C-alpha cells in the first residue's frame, strides 16, 4: 500500500517494441512447432509435447504481453491460486474415474 499524494502519478515502465516483436515471432514459431510435432509419432509423448509447447507459449504471453514480469509478486500468486484450484478439480475428478476398476467388484 502506498499513500503518496495525488500529484505523484506512477511513470509506467514501457517495454521496447522490439521485445513485443520477438515474443510475437517466438509464438509463431511455437505454433509451427506444435503442428509439426503432431505429425511425428512420439507415442504417449505427443500429448505431453503439445501441452508443453502450449504452456511455454502462454508463459511468454503472460510475462510480456500481460506485463506480469513487471508487476508486483501478488499477481503471480493470484494466477497460481487459480491454476492450483484447476489442478485440484482435475486430479480429484480423474482420480475417481481412474480407480473405478481397481476393486474388481462389479459396480464398485
Amino acid at each position, binding site marked *: 500500500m502506498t499513500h503518496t499524494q495525488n500529484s505523484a502519478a506512477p511513470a509506467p515502465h514501457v517495454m521496447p517494441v522490439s521485445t513485443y516483436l520477438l515474443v510475437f515471432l517466438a509464438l509463431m514459431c511455437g505454433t509451427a512447432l506444435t503442428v509439426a510435432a503432431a505429425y511425428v509419432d512420439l507415442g504417449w509423448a505427443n500429448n505431453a509435447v503439445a501441452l508443453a509447447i502450449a504452456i511455454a507459449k502462454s508463459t511468454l504471453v503472460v510475462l510480456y504481453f500481460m506485463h506480469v514480469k513487471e508487476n508486483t509478486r501478488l499477481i503471480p500468486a493470484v494466477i497460481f491460486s487459480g491454476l492450483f*484450484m484447476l489442478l485440484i478439480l482435475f486430479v480429484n475428478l480423474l482420480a475417481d474415474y481412474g480407480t473405478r476398476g481397481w476393486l474388481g467388484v462389479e459396480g464398485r
Partner: protein
Amino acid sequence: MTTSPNPAPSLEAPRTHYLNAAYGLRSWLFTRDHKRIALLYLVSVSVFFALGGLMAVLIRMELATPDGDLFQPDIYNRLFTMHGVLMIFFFLIPGIPAVLGNFLIPLMIGAKDLAFPRINLLSWYLYTAGGLFTLWALLHGGVDTGWTFYTPLSTNYVNTSVLTVGVGIFIAGFSSILTGLNFVITIHRMRAPGLTWFRLPLFVWGHYATSIIQILGTPVIAITILMIAAERTLHIGFFDPKLGGDPVLFQHLFWFYSHPAVYIMILPAMGVVSELVATFARKPIFGYRFVAFASIGIAVLGFLVWGHHMFVAGESIYAGVVFSVLSMLVAVPSAIKVFNWTATLYKGSISWDTPMLYALGFIGLFTIGGLTGVMLATLGIDAHVHDTYFIIAHFHYIMVGGAIMGYLGGLHFWWPKITGRLYPVFWSKLSALVIFIGFNVTFFPQFILGYLGMPRRYHSYPPEFQVLNVMSSAGATVLGLGYLMPLVYFVWSMRYGPRATANPWGATGLEWQTTSPPPVENFTVRPVVTAPPYTYASAPAGKEAADVG
C-alpha cells in the same frame, strides 16, 4: 485497535450522515455508497428469506401428518426445491457478506469505500435480476428437481422451469463473484496506514477466506449450468448417457462449487462470532493467528472434500476413502475456532447482551452440526443415512443454527452503527431464546428420524414417525415466531428506538471510532492504526497480547 491522537472528531450524533445525505428513490437506486448498497441487500435478502421460510412452513405443515394429504407429490417436490434454491442462492450465500461485509469491511479497514463502488452496485442489480428470474419461474410452477439439479432428471425428464431458475442462479453467481472480487481487492489495497494483516479484525479474515471461495468456486457452477442449458435445449450432450456423457461428471462439477459454498455461508458467520465473543468477554481473541489461518485453512480444505456427497453415486471406493479422510481434516480448523472461542470466554468478564446470546447459540449449534458432519464423512455411516433426515438435520444445524444465528447476532451487534438507533433489550433477548429453542425442537428430532430411516424428499411417511414429525413441525412454528420478532422490533427501532452513541458496546474496532450512523465518507479524520485488534482494557497484558502482536 486505537487511533493515534488525532484532533478527536465529535462523536455526537451527526447532523448529516449517509442515511440523510440525499433523499428519494434515485439516491438509493443509483448510490455507490457501500453502506447504502448494504441496506439495499438487507431488504432484498430479507424478502427471499421470508419466501424461503414460507416454503418451509408449507413443508412442515404437510409433514405434520403421515399421509400426503395437503399437497400432491409433484407440488411437494417444487416446494422443497424452491425452499432450497431461495435459501441457499438468494439468502445464505449473499446474506452476511453482502449485507454486513459490504457495510463493515471499508469501515473496519478505515477506507472510504470498496475498491470498485460501481461494480458493487452492479452486483446488487445482478443479484436482483437473478432473484426476479427465480421468482418468475416460481410463478410459472417452479422447479421440482431438488436444488441439486441432478442430471439426467434436470436435462431429460422434468418439464418445469429448470432453465429460468438456472439463468437466475447463473446471474446471481456473477453477483457473488463480483462481491468477492471487490472484497479481496479492497482488503489488499485499501487498508488504513498501520493496519497490517495481523491487525485486521477476524471478521475481515473470515470475509477474505469467503471471497477466495466465491472467486474460485462460483465460475465452475456457472459453466455447469451452461452445460445443463446446452444439453436441455440444444441436445449438445455432456452428461446424458444416450449422448455419450456421464451423469456422475455433473455431480463432480456441481459439488466442486456447492460443497465449498457451505463455507461461503459459515465462514462469515464465524467472523461475526469472533468479534462478538471478544467484545462481550472483554478479552482479546485467544490465539488470534490460529483463528485467522483456520479461516484460510477451511477455505482451501473445503475444495478437497466434495466427493463425500457421492459415496453412493458410483464413485470409486478408493476416491471415496480419500475424500472421507480429507473431509474429516476440515474438522481440525473448525475445532480450532471453537476451542479458541471457548478459551476466550474462559475467565472473561462476560456480559449477556443480545448479540452474545446469538453468538453462544452459534457455538453450540455449530458444534453439533460439525460433529455430525464428521460422522457423515465416515463411509459406512454415510451409506446408512445417505438421503435421510439425518442429512437434513446435519446441514440445517450448520446453515440455520450456524449461519443464520451468526447473521442475526451480527445484525443485533451492528444495528446501532447501521441505523443509529437502539432496539428493545427485553424483546431482543427473548427472540434469541425463542429462536434457539424453536430451532432445536425443529431439527433435533430429524436426527432421530433419519437414523431410523426416514428418507428426505417424500411428502408422506409411515405412521410410526408421526410423533417426531409433529415435534419438528411444532418447533418450526416457534422458530418462525422467533424470526418475526426481530423483524418487528428492528423496523420499530428505526423510527422510535432511542438514539445510539458512537460506541454503545464499548467495543474496539475502527467501525466504532466513527459516528453512528457513519458519515458518507466514513471517517472525518483518516484513522491510523497503531495496535492489534481486541485490546480490551480488562485484558491481562501478558501472554495473549504478545501472541497477537
